[in-house]
């Protein structure tokens, strides 16, 4: 039952990302709901579910997007890695950890995307990309990080009410 709920939530997130979030750009940057969800869930849970979310998000984005598949795999798994790292060190302030992980994950994803497109032979201007895409994307991700984390926390409490934080 828990797995079914998480699958449904994940599918809803993918649909929202493709149909809604990408249609609401700031300049030319868009938020990444899946990255924020993976970051928030990795900070909330201590089990393997965050890795499973990262894998599912990577596979779905690699399938849907025209970007090099290395980008989603590297960015989502690095987010979980960072979340695990900060979870053990600044566990008393999860919001700060969330902001750091979201910011760093978004930056890694944007820079990897830029590098992947450049390596594929397409010439894009770094300054234009920075101003028009990367910074707005970072801003949107930071803006949406808290609401997404709040939804994730409620769902986590619903699914795992007896999990005791150490």
């Amino acid at each position: 039952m828990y797995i079914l709920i998480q699958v449904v939530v994940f599918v809803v997130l993918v649909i929202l990302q493709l149909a809604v979030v990408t249609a609401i750009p700031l300049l030319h940057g868009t938020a990444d709901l899946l990255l924020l969800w993976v970051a928030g869930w990795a900070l909330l849970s201590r089990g393997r579910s965050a890795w499973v979310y990262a894998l599912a998000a990577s596979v779905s984005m690699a399938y849907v997007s025209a970007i090099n598949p290395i980008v989603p795999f590297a960015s989502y798994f690095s987010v979980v890695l960072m979340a695990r790292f900060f979870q053990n060190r600044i566990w008393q302030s999860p919001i700060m950890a969330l902001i750091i992980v979201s910011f760093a994950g978004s930056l890694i994803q944007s820079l990897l995307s830029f590098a992947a497109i450049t390596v594929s032979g397409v010439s894009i201007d770094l300054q234009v990309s920075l101003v028009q895409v990367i910074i707005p994307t970072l801003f949107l991700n930071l803006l949406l990080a808290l609401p997404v984390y709040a939804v994730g926390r409620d769902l986590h409490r619903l699914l795992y009410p007896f999990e005791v934080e150490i």
Partner: protein
Amino acid sequence: MTIGLIVVGVLVLSLSGFLGEVVGRALDPVVGAQSWIATRFQAVVDFFTAPRDVASLTAKNTQLENEVSQLQSQIIQLKQQLSESEVLYSLLDFARERPENKYVAASVIGRDPSPFLHYVIIDHGSDDGIQYGMPVVTQQGLVGRVDAVTAGAARVQLITDPGSAVNIRLEKAGVEGQAVGSVTGDISLAMVGLSAELSADDLVLTSGLGGDYPADILVGQLLTPSHELNSLFQSAAIQPVVDFSKLRAVLIITNFTPVDIAPLTPATTQ
């Protein structure tokens, strides 16, 4: 005797025309009293029945408000259907004007999650005869081409994508070049030599060279041509005819087979 006198008096007054006035004056106090009593009685009735009327009016008002809400939602739905119908009718008109091509209409159901890329996802795939490389248009002009296909969906690379390069020709200038996309979604002119005389408002059409797109599909309009010092080519922005931010339905040209010229491209020399 008395009755006879009264009857005679009435007859005299009636014949002389004064009966109405006399009767009127006699009845005026009665009418006044009747009016006074009726007004007070109605006030008393209103006093006792008003709360019940307010309650019924409130219920009626609520019912009417519900009906208004339902009608408003129906209006919104009808407007949406009308808008979709208009888009579909315009696509149908476009397809009828070009009977030499076969089209499949599809709805745009998503966009590429990467903000660096400009791709859309459509709701038709290989089950509907869509194949890799097929050109995608709207009633306004060129949209892009099919980049990946599944059974029920396909991904379309827009001409605004930074990896897109469309071979074009300028209608007035009569020269050929390329329309290349960018990360910001702007399209610019490339590969046009310095000798060409470019003018603003020149129409940009596909040239058909390279075999990626059919010839003579409208791409956009030229804006502010310029050439930088020591540059080999002129440059200009192209205003696309398609509004890519509001792309909702597209047509895929299914009877056009793109030509793969990769085997003809000379290998890179060391």
